[in-house]
């Protein structure tokens, strides 16, 4: 009898723990929505900040974050997809493949601030890009590369072997087979992985801190060698570095909300996309 009671207690305990996590997530989102939504209006989203960020909008930070995310994907997507194609279609078990896999796992574990140091050392200083959009994008691309590779490889491997065998048996070459009979079925899955990567790149602060982000720069970038403001860094600055933190609290909530909406929105698109694909291709 006592054993049964303790079983119930443990089952309840882990249920409470699970819902406590859910409660915290919900309260983060609700708190930011509740306080941020009243502040957000068209003007906030489309005008320059004024007086060191105490007033005005966050347009340059939005533009900055979008351009960083876009640039990062343009760099990381082809590299990641090509690597995934190599790993799933060409690679033979051996030292090179093992090393590539070890490198990918290592990259996935490198702390974001260390990517920042790397970007600072290589792109900003050694290659003389200076603190610029291009340096930031290259740094972020290195960071999201493993996400794109791993998810792309998974979708490639999900395409049945018979698709390849059928094509090869008809006399197609290996690349023709991949191009005509494997990629069409996996391209959307690969895009899903990269959308998740975009979300990560848009939300990261530490790497751009050292390679691109400007503290306060109320104008739009003209070239990829310009510095930009970025939403996550702007939020950090408003919340911890601003001379009057309490006064700009509403702006902090609004900035947090825009960032959260952007990142979760991107992730949501990826999730819906994935559900759609799973329904479309089933074998």
């Amino acid at each position, binding site marked *: 009898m006592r054993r049964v009671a303790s079983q119930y207690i443990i089952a309840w305990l882990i249920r409470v723990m699970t819902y406590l996590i859910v409660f915290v997530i919900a309260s*983060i989102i609700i708190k930011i929505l509740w306080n941020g939504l009243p502040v957000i209006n068209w003007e906030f989203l489309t005008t320059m900040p004024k007086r060191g960020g105490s007033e005005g909008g966050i347009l340059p930070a939005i533009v900055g974050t979008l351009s960083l995310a876009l640039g990062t994907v343009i760099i990381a997507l082809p590299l990641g997809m090509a*690597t995934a194609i190599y790993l799933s279609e*060409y690679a033979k078990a051996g030292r090179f493949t093992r090393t590539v896999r070890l490198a990918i796992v290592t990259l996935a574990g490198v702390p974001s601030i260390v990517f920042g140091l790397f970007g600072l050392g290589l792109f900003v200083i050694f290659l003389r890009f200076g603190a610029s959009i291009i340096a930031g994008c290259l740094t972020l691309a290195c960071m999201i590369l493993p996400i794109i590779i791993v998810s792309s490889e998974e979708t490639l491997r999900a395409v049945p072997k018979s698709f390849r065998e059928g094509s090869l048996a008809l006399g197609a070459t290996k690349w023709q087979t991949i191009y005509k009979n494997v990629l069409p079925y996996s391209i959307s899955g690969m895009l899903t992985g990269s959308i998740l990567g975009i979300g990560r790149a848009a939300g990261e602060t530490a790497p751009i801190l050292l390679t691109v982000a400007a503290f306060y720069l109320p104008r739009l970038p003209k070239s990829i060698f310009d510095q930009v403001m970025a939403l996550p860094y702007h939020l950090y600055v408003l919340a911890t570095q601003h001379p009057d933190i309490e006064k700009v609290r509403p702006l902090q909530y609004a900035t947090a909300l825009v960032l959260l909406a952007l990142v979760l929105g991107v992730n949501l698109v990826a999730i819906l996309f994935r559900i759609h694909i799973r329904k479309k291709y089933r074998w």
Partner: protein
Amino acid sequence: MKAAWKEKAIRLMLFATASTSILIVIGIFVFVGKEAGQFAIKPGLKELISSRWMPVSFQKESFGLLPLITGSLLVTALATILTIPFGIGAAVYISELARPAEREILKPFIEILAGIPSVVIGFFGLVVLVPLIKSSFSLSTGLTALAGAVLLALMAIPTVVSISEDAIRSVPASYKAASLALGASKMQTIWKVTVPAALPGIVAAIMLGIGRVIGETMAVMMVTGNAAIITASPFDSVRTMTATIAAEMGEVAFGSIHYRALFCVGIVLLLATFGLNIIAQKFLKKYRMG
């Protein structure tokens, strides 16, 4: 003939792109290591083994890493203590006890947490958690190691839940059936059969979670108070390795000793996460084979 050349060229190109990952890893070690190496030559690595981190001083600067390392360790240890029960508890609940419909909602919902940018979590910590800690423990400030640890646990939990849940679910159904057939109850089966069978995967999940915790920067920097002192109390303010780099890099002169000292902090971080990652991979391999 032309086709054969094209095939070869494509193969070579893909091979080359696959090598970029290796090149990036080497690049990271080289470019972080280079500056740290300069520090090792002058003023020497002995500088780092000291309990004072005072990079800017009128008398003598001091670059002791010990307070930063202990700061990171304290926050990481506290976060791990919080993450393990919640991570495993939620994973077990979702995989074994939740109804199917409940599971379909719970898992993606917890994974949303992984998508929230760390600076937003840090901001939430600043406006909600820090005042809460201050008032409930009646401290002079809520900017403590504990605040950092709670936020880090929040960031590690989705990783741990997601990977552990996969591991628990991949335990063969025959194990559970055998245990239940022998008269064990559902809970006995979960704790004595299913969870032990999934243990390598769970350990790997925790390792990867800790890896994320050690490397986390923004949330920690915003709520731990950033005092470079050696302490074991969760109610003290601490300064982690990551926060030190992020906070000070903007203000140092390129090529100065302080600049190089920050790269030394970076290499310590890099080696720590690299080591954890390798161990986690060993465990993951074990559970995938088993």
